[in-house]
């Protein structure tokens, strides 16, 4: 009995929080827009019995998915999201790896403090932090005041409402997700391996390249997925920090839902996004699995 409960629990969790919402969204994406509340047809009417059910399924179609291919806005938005996600994942890695490396090499007694500093931003609201970046990056913002004060630039830089601001926002927001898995991998690493590499003729740099990097590979991969996957669907950062030409699928989705009130098309966009994300999610899971096996 207890074992049964233990097994059922995660499945119930998955069912309630992932599968059920997904089926609802999928159903909406197959429906038609309607001036009603909720704004789509058909609705499932259990009172009508088997005939009503048959009628309900007959009304579902792939029209909205077809629509996505007719307007180039959508695939451009997908591509642009992918591009922004890839670039910002790479930037996050560039910033995060040295930080994780420094933390793993720091004195033992400092590590908990450093770890807490990495997690500290989560203690305030994400929205507030993004707004803070608006204050920093705007033409009259802190950054420009600082640069002009130093005399480095004469005219204020336009950063806010460009893709640059989006990259800054994504790197800033998802940095901890990059640092933590890499740190975990580096911290486990036995330092005598580096000594062994040097003993066998490596310079410090090639020892890093041939030993440290491969041994933190799983951390790097995990960190990249943890940044890449949410970054693709990111909505708040592009809409607050990005400009009118920043095209991201999360923003398109939001506009379909709330500006156009076209729930079926919005749902279709969401379903396609999910299908796109399944590939990296499966790859991520496989990487985690392999890492566990290598350890075990």
């Amino acid at each position, binding site marked *: 009995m207890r074992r049964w409960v233990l097994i059922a629990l995660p499945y119930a969790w998955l069912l309630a929080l992932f599968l059920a919402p997904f089926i609802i969204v999928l159903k909406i994406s197959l429906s038609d827009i309607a001036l009603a509340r909720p704004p789509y047809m058909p609705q499932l009417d259990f009172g009508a019995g088997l005939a009503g059910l048959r009628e309900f399924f007959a009304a579902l179609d792939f029209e909205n998915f077809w629509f996505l291919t007719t307007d180039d806005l959508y695939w451009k938005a997908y591509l642009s999201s992918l591009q922004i996600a890839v670039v910002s994942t790479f930037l996050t890695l560039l910033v995060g790896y040295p930080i994780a490396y420094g933390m793993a090499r720091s004195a033992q007694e400092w590590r908990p403090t450093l770890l807490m500093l990495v997690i500290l931003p989560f203690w305030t609201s994400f929205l507030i932090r993004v707004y803070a970046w608006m204050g920093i990056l705007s033409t009259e913002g802190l950054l420009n005041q600082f640069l002009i004060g130093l005399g480095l630039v004469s005219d204020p830089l336009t950063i806010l409402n460009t893709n640059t601001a989006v990259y800054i926002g994504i790197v800033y927001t998802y940095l901890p997700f990059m640092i933590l898995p890499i740190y975990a991998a580096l911290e486990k690493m036995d330092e005598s*391996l580096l000594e062994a590499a040097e003993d066998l003729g490596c310079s410090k740099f090639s020892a890093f390249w041939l030993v440290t990097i491969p041994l933190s590979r799983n951390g790097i991969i995990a960190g990249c997925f943890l940044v890449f996957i949410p970054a693709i669907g990111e909505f708040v950062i592009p809409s607050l920090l990005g400009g009118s030409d920043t095209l991201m699928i999360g923003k398109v989705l939001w506009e379909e839902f709330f500006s156009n009130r076209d729930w079926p098309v919005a749902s279709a966009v969401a379903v396609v996004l999910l299908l796109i994300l399944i590939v990296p999610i499966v790859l991520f899971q496989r990487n985690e699995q392999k890492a566990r096996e290598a350890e075990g």
Partner: protein
Amino acid sequence: MAETAQKPKTKSTAPDQAFEPWEDPNAKPLIEFRGVTKRFGDFTAIDDLTQDIYEREFFALLGPSGCGKTTMMRMLAGFDMPTAGEILIAGQDMAGIPPNKRPVNMMFQSYALFPHLSIWDNIAFGLKREGRGSDAIAERVEEMLRLTRLERFARRKPHQISGGQRQRVALARSLAKAPKLLLLDEPLGALDKKLRQDTQFELMDIQEKTGTTFVIVTHDQEEAMTVASRVAVMDEGRIVQVATPAVIYEAPATTYVADFIGDVTLIAGEAKAHESVVEEVVPEPEVAAPEPLVAAAEGERAPQPNALGEWLHDRLLTRVLGPRKAAPKLLPAPEVAAVVEAPVAAPKAAPTEGLAIHWAAGQPPLVAANAPPDWAGKRVTLALRPEKVAISKARPEAANALQGKVIDIAYLGNISTYHVELANGSMIKAQMANTRRISRRDITWEDDVWVSFSDTAAAVLEE
């Protein structure tokens, strides 16, 4: 521990000339430690160490855990810098030379195998850094795999093989580059005896073929005896004695070395000129002050019962165990009656020179011919190897013969060690080859026996 370990070594270039560069004042050492001190914080791991190691040597470091063996190796390999003093390799000061620029390879005590690389790639790692051709690398790796009998595991990762196999990978990896100087930190500890012996001979073989200099750390003295040209016994960051295995074993410099290497009975006493002994058949009372064996000296550090313990013992345990001994581990002093009654054996074949060591009341002085006569009057310790002590039921014709009772027999297969308690409570270990089957053995527990040894059997050590 057997003398067979000191088999002749063929390390010298000329077969009849012994390999002893340390005896040659013109020989140039490969490694020179000059006043090297290493401190970690306020802990001194290596204390003002000066030592030369010569080319083609097989230099063994022996010592208790934490005495600084690994630290010495790490300084040679370049991972730790001396706090003071300098280290020279081939005449060149190693200060500031990084590990990858030193003509040294080290096998790590923790193996330090690369977990992301296969066994094959682990062994090839150093070779690839040298930029050799891939054919040459493959050939060398195969050779190393064959040598360490790892061919079957070449494609596995380190976590997929056993501990002993991992140790062999580490060994193969350090051997692969055939460096001028090889540092092996406990290279064979995880191997079974057979494989260990085979590998020892392989190492000696490699050493002979390539002329590599080996510095090897081992906890196994038999191994040190087998492979080493010289053995250094270390204690708390200092080298206590450096000598050939035979000298270390037969003529230890201090009781520490004697006790650390092999099995030994230590007997402390006062040396007198030998002639005087023959006349004084009964020892003088003041000389006969009870002298516990040094072997039991650790009893001084043994926990003493506190007041409650004493009370408990007196109230409860006395009935079962008998009266409490004041110092539990010290062997009891002989009773006065025993002094008078004990048969005092005057050596029959008395040599004319040497020392007589008065060590316990009621026991005959022990005769030692292998000590300078001017040590008479000093306090000395006799270090007696069990295999040099014979055991018999009848009184033997020997320079030294003592009577006692067999308390314990340790059966070791080819030999047995007898623990014989003398009348004054002292213990002496004697060893005998098991030429007969156990059931036929005539000496057994509680038997009254004689232990005997010649006047040159024991090493005489100044205190």
